[in-house]
Each structure stands twice: as C-alpha cells, then as structure tokens.
C-alpha cells in the first residue's frame, strides 16, 4: 500500500477527451474573457496530462463557454468543455484521495454519503448511550467534552493529512513551483470573490437559466462558503475559549461562538439548500454526470449540518437536545471524515489550481 497518490495512472479516457476539446478551443479562442481557464489554455501549444488536470481544476463550471460555443452538438466537433473538464476533475480528486476508491465511492454515490451519515449519527447516539457523563452543562450533559474531542480531533486531523498528501501529488503533477505570498494573495482574492463564476465581467454564470447569465449560483456558493467558514470559526473560537480562557459551553447569544455560529449556520443552510435547488434546474449534461448523485448528497449534507446546528441551538434546555446533538454531530462527523473523498475536496484542489495559475501568469 502506498500513500503516494500519483502512482495511480490518470484516467486516460477523460484526459484524452478533454485534450481533444482543448485543442479545438486553442484554435478558436473566442471564450478567452470568461475565466482563468482559457488564458491558461492559450498559453500552451501542447497539453500534457498535468496541463489538462490543472485547466480542469481551474474551471469552475460556469458554463459560459458551452452556451457560446459554435461547436457543440449536433456539430461534429461535439464540444462540451464544461463536462469534459468536470470529468477530468472528478477523476483527479479520486486519484489524489488516499486510499484509492473512496473518492469514487463518495463523490459519485449519493447513497454512500447518506449511508455514512446514518452511520455517523448512529455512532453519536451510541456514544451518548454508552458514555453518559456524570455531570455537565448544556450539551456536555449529554456528551462530555472529552468524548467529543476524542471523536472529532482524529476526525478532523485524518482528512487534513489525506488532503495534504493529495495536494502534494497534485502539485507535482501540474509542475508547481515554490509558493510565494503573491501567489497566495492572488489565489485567495479570486477564490474569495468567486471571480471564476462571474462570467469574466461580473454578469454571472450560465447554470440554471441556460444561455442567460445569472448570479444565483455565485451568491448561493458565497453563502455556503462564508457560512461554513463562520461555523468553523465559531467552533474554533469555542475551543480556544475552552482551553485558553477556561470558559466552557454553553455560551450566551452575545458570545463569540454564537455571534459567528448563528449567522454562519443561517448562511450555510440557505446557501447549501439554494445550491441543491439550482442543481435541480441546471442541465446535468454540462457537469460530471457520474458524480451528480454524490454532489447532490454533499450539498444536502452541508445544508443539513447547518440546519441541525441551528435547531440544536433553538431547542437548548429542552428534551430534544440529545437527539438533535446526535443528528448535528453525526452530520459534522460525516462531513469531516469524507472531506477528501466528497465534493468538499474541490475547494482545496481549486485553490491549489488558482495558486498554480498565479505562478504561471508571473512566469
């Protein structure tokens, strides 16, 4: 068994198809202004596997190029670049997620992610039943702080290690150079603003309204992303208050964890369910069709994580706390543990692609 993700060979079919399409794009160039993927493409004449993987991870699936393309089916060139690059992307995340096969499982099968969720919730119920604390306030009366840390510390660290290994393999495949502050700065700005979903001129993308531009997906994704970060910051602030200041939960409404967590939870819930709704309206043939189920399950899991967190807060002090705690922590546990293998991985690889793109623009 190897930790080296790159020893698995890339899926030649999806890369070959993407290369065929990218070579046609490179002779046309009409879509240059939509996003970062095209200038990156047009800087090359020949495309190695690493080049294709990098371009695929730069693509945010805004679909502007598809609806503008004079070579989509029924034209014999049969271009569908958003789909071709999505297929390469999904394959690449499979390949970089150790151990191999889990990515294929959780990215592509909504059932797998749902099953994992049920298992996660069951585990939390089991922990509550078997490790009932002698004392404690709020949800610590249901599950002690020690038990929570024992479950969640490894559940957080393990995916981080897997992702780090995957990113290292990605970096080697795309020929990445040492990272400088300026690269990170540019990548963070473009990721934070979702620049690559704005259509190049701020008009938005072509997701749920066909050839009309719309901001809906960008806004829903921003709510999801920033909501998630606020929730994460909320949990982190609670941890720091617990260890550094000796301030233990439950926290009041005007405490840092709640000030971050409540708006974060609202944004995450609205954003994730919004993304799920948009996904139902969008044409599945312009994405990685084999991953549709897994992607849908993932955004629903994100929404469920936010929603159960909010409900958990709303029911505090009532008899519903143990059940809601198990539901919420079960969702969080599943989200964390499957991070390297679910759609969650896209954020990390996409950021790496943006960093690499910043390097190539400087070169």
């Amino acid at each position, binding site marked *: 068994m190897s930790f080296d993700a790159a020893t698995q060979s890339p899926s030649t079919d999806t890369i070959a198809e993407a290369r065929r399409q990218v070579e046609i794009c490179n002779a046309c160039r*009409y879509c240059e202004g939509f996003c970062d993927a095209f200038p990156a493409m047009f800087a090359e004449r020949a495309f190695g596997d690493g080049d294709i993987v990098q371009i695929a991870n730069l693509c945010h699936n805004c679909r502007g190029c598809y609806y503008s393309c004079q070579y989509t089916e029924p034209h014999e060139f049969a271009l569908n670049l958003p789909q071709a690059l999505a297929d390469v992307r999904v394959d690449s995340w499979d390949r970089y997620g150790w151990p191999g096969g889990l990515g294929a499982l959780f990215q592509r099968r909504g059932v797998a992610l749902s099953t994992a969720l049920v298992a996660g919730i069951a585990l939390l119920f089991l922990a509550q039943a078997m490790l009932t604390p002698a004392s404690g306030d709020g949800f610590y009366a249901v599950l002690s702080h020690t038990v929570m840390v024992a479950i969640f510390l490894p559940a957080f660290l393990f995916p981080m290690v897997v992702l780090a290994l995957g990113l290292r393999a990605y970096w080697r495949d795309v020929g990445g150079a040492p990272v400088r502050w300026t690269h990170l700065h540019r990548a963070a700005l473009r990721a934070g603003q979702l620049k690559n979903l704005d259509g190049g001129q701020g008009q938005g993308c072509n997701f749920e309204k066909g050839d009309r531009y719309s901001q809906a997906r960008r806004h829903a994704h921003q709510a999801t992303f920033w909501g998630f970060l606020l929730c994460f910051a909320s949990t982190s602030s609670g941890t720091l208050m617990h260890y550094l200041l000796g301030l233990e939960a439950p926290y009041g409404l005007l405490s840092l964890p709640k000030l971050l967590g409540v708006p974060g939870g609202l944004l995450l819930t609205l954003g994730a369910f919004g993304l799920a709704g948009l996904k139902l309206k969008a044409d599945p043939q312009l994405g990685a069709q084999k991953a549709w189920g897994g992607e849908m399950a993932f955004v629903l899991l994100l929404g469920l994580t936010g929603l159960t967190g909010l409900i958990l807060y709303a029911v505090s002090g009532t008899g519903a706390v143990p059940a809601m705690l198990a539901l919420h922590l079960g969702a969080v546990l599943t989200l964390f543990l499957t991070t390297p293998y679910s759609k969650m991985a896209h954020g990390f690889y996409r950021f790496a692609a943006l960093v690499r793109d910043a390097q190539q623009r400087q070169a």
Partner: protein
Amino acid sequence: MSGIETAGWDVIVAGGGNAALCAAIEAAEAGARVLVLEGAPKDYRGGNSRHTRNFRCMHRGPLSVLTDSYGEDEYFDDLIRVTKGETDEGLARLAIRQSEDCLPWMERHGVRFQPSLSGTLSLSRTNAFFLGGGKALVNAYYNTLEDLGVTVRYEAQVTHVHIENGQFEALDVTLDGESLRILGRALVLASGGFQSDIDWLARAWGPSARNFLIRGTRYNRGVVLADMLEQGAESVGDPTQCHAVAIDGRAPKYDGGIVTRLDCVPFSIVVNRDGDRFYDEGEDVWPKRYAIWGRLVAAQPDQVAYSIIDSRSVELFMPSVFPPEKADTIAGLADKLGLPADKLTQTVEVFNAACGEGTFSPQELDGLATEGVEPPKTNWARPIAEPPFYGYSLRPGVTFTYLGLKVDETARVSGPDGRYANIWAAGEMMAGSILGQGYLAGFGMTIGTVFGRIAGQEAAAHVV
C-alpha cells in the same frame, strides 16, 4: 398552426442572424407585432453570425474595449483598399458613421465585448470582440426578443414572397412540414447569401466549386434571394463571385468556422496535387494574403494544395485544429499526404538550393528571398531542412457570396417598378452594395447591425 397565418403581423423578418435580429428588436421596440422566421433549427440559429467574432467600429476616442480612435476617413480608406473601389460610398459611409452608435446599442441589448483576443492584437483599435464570440451575441439578441414578446419560429423556410403592385402581401413558408401563407404588413429580408447551395455555387463559379468547403452555416441557400431576383428585384454584386480563403483541407463541409484557418503558409512552401509550387508564399504577411490563397488553391487541380514546413517553423503560427501530418523525410511526408514522393523531394531540393543567406524574422517582412526559382518566395525563404517535416492540406473555404439585393439609404429594396412599398433588406443579403469585392474583418457585422436596425425602424414606422 393556422393562427400564425392570420395573426396580423406588422413586421415579418425572414432570417435569424445578426441583421434579422437587430431589425426585429428595433421593430418590436417601436411597438410593432413582429414575427421572426429562422430557416435553421434552434441549435444552428443565427446564420453566419454565430461564427463571427467582432464588430468593426468607428470611434472618435476610446470606446468600450476599443483603444485610441478610428475615424470615418481611415475606416473608409481601409474599405477602399480591400474593395478596390467597388463600393457605394454613400451606403458605406452611412454604415461607418452609424457603427459608433451601434456599439452602445449592442451593449444595451445584451452583447458583451472583450479585449482583442490573444493573437489578434493588430485589431484592438478597430474591432470590438464579442465575449464568447458571435453565438453569444446571437443568444443575447434572441433573449432580448423573448423579453420583448416577439414570436420566433425555427425551421421556418420562406419559399416565396407574394408581391402585388410593388407591395408585399404575404409569405409562403414551410413550417413543421406544412406549407403556410403568412400575411404581414411589412417585410424585412435578412436571410443571407447563397453559398451553401452548392449547385448554385457550381453554376455561378464553375464545377470546381463542388470541391469548396463552406466555412459557415449550411442554411444560407439563397432561397429568398432567388425568389426575389426572379420577381425582378434589383440586384448588386457580381453573381459569379464568392469570398473564399485557404483553410484546412480536412475541415467539415459546412460550419468549420474560425478554427479551420491555417496560418502556416508564409513559413512554408505550398505545392499542388502534382508536387509543384505555384505562387510566392512569402509575398506579404498572412493577414494581408490569406484571402487570395482561396482563389489560388481553387485554381489548382482538384482544388487542393499542401503546405509543407520543417520543425523550425511549427510554433510560428496559431495552433491548428487538426494536427499536421508528420514524417522524418520529405518522401515519407509525401506518402502520408498522398503526393508523388520523388516530385515533392525534387521541389523541396530546388527550393532549398534557391534559399540564400540572411536573417529569418517571422514577425516582419524580412526580405529573405529565393534566387533562381520560379515562382520565387520573397520573404521568409528558409530551407525546409530540419526534420521532422510537417504538412497540411489546404482547400478553398467560402465565407460568403457577393450577389445581393440593391437597397437605398433606408434599406428599402427596389423592384422592376421602383422601390417596393414595404420591403427592406439587411445583412449579407444586401452587403454586396458596400462590399463589392474583398473583405474587411468585422465589417459584415457592421453592415448587418447598421442596416438591420435601419430596416427594423423603417418597417415599423411604415406600419405603426
């Protein structure tokens, strides 16, 4: 279906490309009830506009993505240079002057522009590029029409225009397999040239036209144009001529569009089917010469030619959509291209022997010329000597035909008894009035936009 026949259309637009859409938008905004009849299916709507990429625009200062300025006289001079004077100065200057107002109008109707594409910096002052290309422009206009409540029917082929006493009365249209007679009060004709009707092209040009490739839509068959000419509508433009450039010989018969262009000729030698060179490949920079190569190749046996380069030149031009044939020897390359190996080897040897000393400079006319070979190569004459060798086939690719309807400054069409009361034309269908010969990049979209808008306004003013 009968509803559409007697729905009381104020303005019917025959065609579904840029000019047709601009006319329909103007007419609808003026309050007319408008019907657009596009002959192509929805996937291929937009005629040749879906293959375009920019709009040549006069501007007195920086405008949108356009840098610096581009005045009326300079624009007109550029037109005179390519048409060699074959233009109607009044109509040409009208198109040029109005182009400046058109660009903001286009933006207001959903068209987005982007800076000049990589590899086209020479056009950043004169031509505004569409973000996503012409199909994105076409999409934006169809969305505008939808918002304006305009009825659009696809696969609606107009077969006959009923004209009584100089007045348009109705159209015969084939729609969903039915033949309909649709009544209307004004008609805008914007259904393009005839270049996709290969039989017509062969009658006009000669039988060799059957070997030409058509760069754009297969739906520009000139059905309405032929019908109008039969009824005695006044025409302009040489009926035998088409604009053709040399493109990749492996391109599809129709709709190959921009990607099939090949920019390798100046750095190559070009031979015909028999392995003979036939023209100075280095006469001028490619943007000034690609158009004449359509005719040069058309004059060769089987209307085909082959451009041969060596490994030193392979990265000097824009990437091609199809990879070139490649071999380590000239004879091997000849086999792959289906050329006589001995003859090609001899042609290359003779050419190489005629190349002199000097500095090869691909970005400018470097004066590196052959001596003692016919035809000469007057620039970039570097021996084809470093393997591997690469070869592309070339064929004539037809962009458009020149024959069209004569219009006045209000885009009105004339018949045997003077101007028709209620028929206007725009776009490729009347562009021969202004572009009698040659082509100026992005000017087809200018003519289409300017005269499409005029036709729509005039038609609406006639009925509303």
